[in-house]
């Protein structure tokens, strides 16, 4: 097929659209116009079949079925892989982990900006206490779209671009374990974003990002888009985790012992465990919801022998590990960056690893704290309160690793370092406010309020997104071969840091003053605080535009070539030339030293490489 048609994004879109209409027709024929939701004329079978066929068409249009079909016909496993150069490779299926990393960076970034735009619209509505810009139904959809888009996209925000790009380089491998699966995990992500946005055309969905039943069972067809989009992300997360784990466990270079593994790779590994084990539960929960809406089952309907609590349990069994799927790579990044700019070894490396694995393990035992206010059996509350509070112990250990590394250090306040320091500041506030939510008495009074909203924005945006920008300013010169403007980077940092805190810190107060979540109206005496927050949020939005401006200016106009190792890092990824060759290493390197031996007298070089990719100077 590749010989007849050049498969790329254009063919994917064409096949996807054709697939949608074909699927919708097939679905309509299967359901024979049966209306499962009383009082509506929607045909959920047709909608789901449309999405399913669109996905098949999208993947076929990119060429994902060529290889499996050839294997079914008995052709041997296909390595080596042919790769094209030039910008066209970013718009079609590629098996080069570096291309996929850049695809993730821009692809996920675009949807992140859309999610951010939704946030601006939410804050516009909240400028006044009464309904003004959007009717209540539209406001709920806006909140749902913002939350779902952000959770879906931020799941891949660090592992997508930086995990895929740098894990093979950091462990001394030439590629990922399953390059085609890696490519598929990316291409499912923009499709999920498009499917989710199509919910607007299907009257939206009223449930927010959690998709709780029974409201989800009663909602219009926009809910189908939510369910299908999240399913695609669930599949993508699971496969991405599987691929990253297989890569780290099997493809480490000689000498890359567990105690020499970069801390970011440990973060990726512990996150991957969660992705492989938690995402299938999300997928199953959503599939049950899909069956309720299409096959008339009653998993979540008490009136037919089901229970809405079943969904809540399954969803949060995924949902809480998901929080750490977001946070752990962020920890990995900041702990990776701190030693470089303090010129000190990472303090308590083994403790940090234990902390990450401890967080990953404990995250499977805390999900019921999300149900404290949903009628959970009261005898279960103390157990889940205890496990939730226990998770702050390994998290605190990771914090101590950061503080220990900073202790008495002569810091270089580069842009990545500033974002890393801000990560600790923000995550501390997020973490401390989280203790209130793990505690039953305080949780039941604050759970439905803006206090919770402020808490998770401090952990996810204050943690993950700040870590993402730290990684962007740190690693983008290696990825693109071009330097980002430092002055604009610092302006971006300070505006983002100040206005992030001005946006979200007052929301703790709004929560204590009983401002409920997901409601477009509020008591008039809360207008001052909301106007302050909205103004700060708009400025926060502007700070993102400064970043986009920096990106365009540095990558399109200034185009200043980056040095091979501008930060004088001992990381293996910095020892290869910039731009990184297609095959990463001429020969698989031999790892001879620890990655964080900064300032250690007589420390051996981190690796023995062939002259073409000889180590750059690291002080």
């Amino acid at each position: 097929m590749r010989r007849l048609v050049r498969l790329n994004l254009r063919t994917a879109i064409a096949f996807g659209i054709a697939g949608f209409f074909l699927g919708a027709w097939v679905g309509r024929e299967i359901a024979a116009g049966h209306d499962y939701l009383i009082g509506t004329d929607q045909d959920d079978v047709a909608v789901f079949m449309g999405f399913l066929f669109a996905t098949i068409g999208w993947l076929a249009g990119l060429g994902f079925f060529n290889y499996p079909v050839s294997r079914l016909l008995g052709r041997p496993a296909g390595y080596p892989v042919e790769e094209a150069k030039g910008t066209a490779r970013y718009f079609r299926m590629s098996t080069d982990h570096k291309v996929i990393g850049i695809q993730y960076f821009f692809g996920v970034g675009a949807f992140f900006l859309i999610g951010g735009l939704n946030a601006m619209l939410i804050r516009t509505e909240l400028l006044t206490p009464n309904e003004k810009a959007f009717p209540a139904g539209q406001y709920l959809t806006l909140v749902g779209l913002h939350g779902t888009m952000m959770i879906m996209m931020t799941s891949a925000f660090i592992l997508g671009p930086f995990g895929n790009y740098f894990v093979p380089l950091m462990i001394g491998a030439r590629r990922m374990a399953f390059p085609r699966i890696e490519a598929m995990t990316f291409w499912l992500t923009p499709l999920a974003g498009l499917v989710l946005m199509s919910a607007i055309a299907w009257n939206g969905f009223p449930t927010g990002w959690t998709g709780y039943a029974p409201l989800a069972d009663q909602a219009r067809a926009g809910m189908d888009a939510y369910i299908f989009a999240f399913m695609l992300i669930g599949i993508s997360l699971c496969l991405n985790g599987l691929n990253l784990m297989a890569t780290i466990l099997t493809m480490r270079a000689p000498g890359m012992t567990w105690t020499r593994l970069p801390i970011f790779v440990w973060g990726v590994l512990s996150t991957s465990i969660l992705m492989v084990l938690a995402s299938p539960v999300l997928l199953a929960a959503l599939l049950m919801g899909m069956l309720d809406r299409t096959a008339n089952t009653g998993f979540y309907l008490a009136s037919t022998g089901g229970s809405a609590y079943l969904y809540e349990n399954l969803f949060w069994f995924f949902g809480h590990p998901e929080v750490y799927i977001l946070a752990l790579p962020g920890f990995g990044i900041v702990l990776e960056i701190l030693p470089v700019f303090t010129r000190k070894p990472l303090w308590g490396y083994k403790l940090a690893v234990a902390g990450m694995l401890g967080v990953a393990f404990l995250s499977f035992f805390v999900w019921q704290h999300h149900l404290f206010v949903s009628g959970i059996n009261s005898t279960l509350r103390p157990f889940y309160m205890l496990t939730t509070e226990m998770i702050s112990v390994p998290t605190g250990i990771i914090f101590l690793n950061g503080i220990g590394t900073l202790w008495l250090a002569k810091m270089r306040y580069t842009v990545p370092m500033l974002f890393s320091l801000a990560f600790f500041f923000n995550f501390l506030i997020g973490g401390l406010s989280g203790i209130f939510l793990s505690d039953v008495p305080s949780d039941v009074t604050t759970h439905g309020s803006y206090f919770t909203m402020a808490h998770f924005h401090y952990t996810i945006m204050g943690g993950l997104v700040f870590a993402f920008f730290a990684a962007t300013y740190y690693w983008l010169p290696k990825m693109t071969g071009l330097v980002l403007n430092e002055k604009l980077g610092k302006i971006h940092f300070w505006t983002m840091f100040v206005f992030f805190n001005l946006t979200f810190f007052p929301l703790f107060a709004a929560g204590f003053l009983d401002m409920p979540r997901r409601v477009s109206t509020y008591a008039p005496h809360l207008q001052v605080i909301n106007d302050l927050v909205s103004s700060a949020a708009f400025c926060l939005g502007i700070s993102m535009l400064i970043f986009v401006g920096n990106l365009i200016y540095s990558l399109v106009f200034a185009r200043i070539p980056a040095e091979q190792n501008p930060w004088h890092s001992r990381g293996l990824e910095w020892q290869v030339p910039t731009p990184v060759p297609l095959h990463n290493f001429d020969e698989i390197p031999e790892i001879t030293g620890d990655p964080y031996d900064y300032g250690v007298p007589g420390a051996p070089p981190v690796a023995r490489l062939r002259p073409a990719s000889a180590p750059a100077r690291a002080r």
Partner: protein
Amino acid sequence: MSAEPTTTWIPAENPELEARIVSLGSYLLSAATTFFFISFLFAFLYLRALNSNGLWGGPKPGHHVPTTTTSGIAILACVLVSVLLVRLALVELRGSTRALWWPACAGALLLGLAAVAIQCWQYTDLGFGTEEGGYASVYLGWTGFFTIFTFGAMLWLETILATARRAPAKAPEVEKSVASFSVFWATLGLVEIAAFILLYGVK
């Protein structure tokens, strides 16, 4: 979208490493699959224990929809014999003769496809509707997705057989492929045992 025609080749990894990657991948896939079906196990136990409005078993409280145990036994037998045949093929591949591995794998493939066919046939004459209680929902969900997973596993097995047919000389690589597949297929076998006990025995 400008295209430059230059192409390069990624150096191939050694076959030993490829085999290790696939082997580990199959364990991880099995773990993910287990957690997927644990969701249905949880749904079974949770809804059965709650028995919302007394409607776990059927549309009327205290009543349970009929189950066709015969076809359930047939599906279980097909899957378990298929799993055993794959193990037998693996033993053959590790032995000196290697005479029976291909027929054993082909038999396993046919039995796996038979399990899929029987399940599909059973849906046409189920004896209850999908809306008739919590049990009916869990039954449809668990068996339906098990059937899809089984079909996927059979595609994997067919790939191994077709590859071996084209290049019979690569016996060590075939052995590693069958070993990886057998891990995943045995996991599905355990899922089927659990499904049979709960859906047809405990109910």
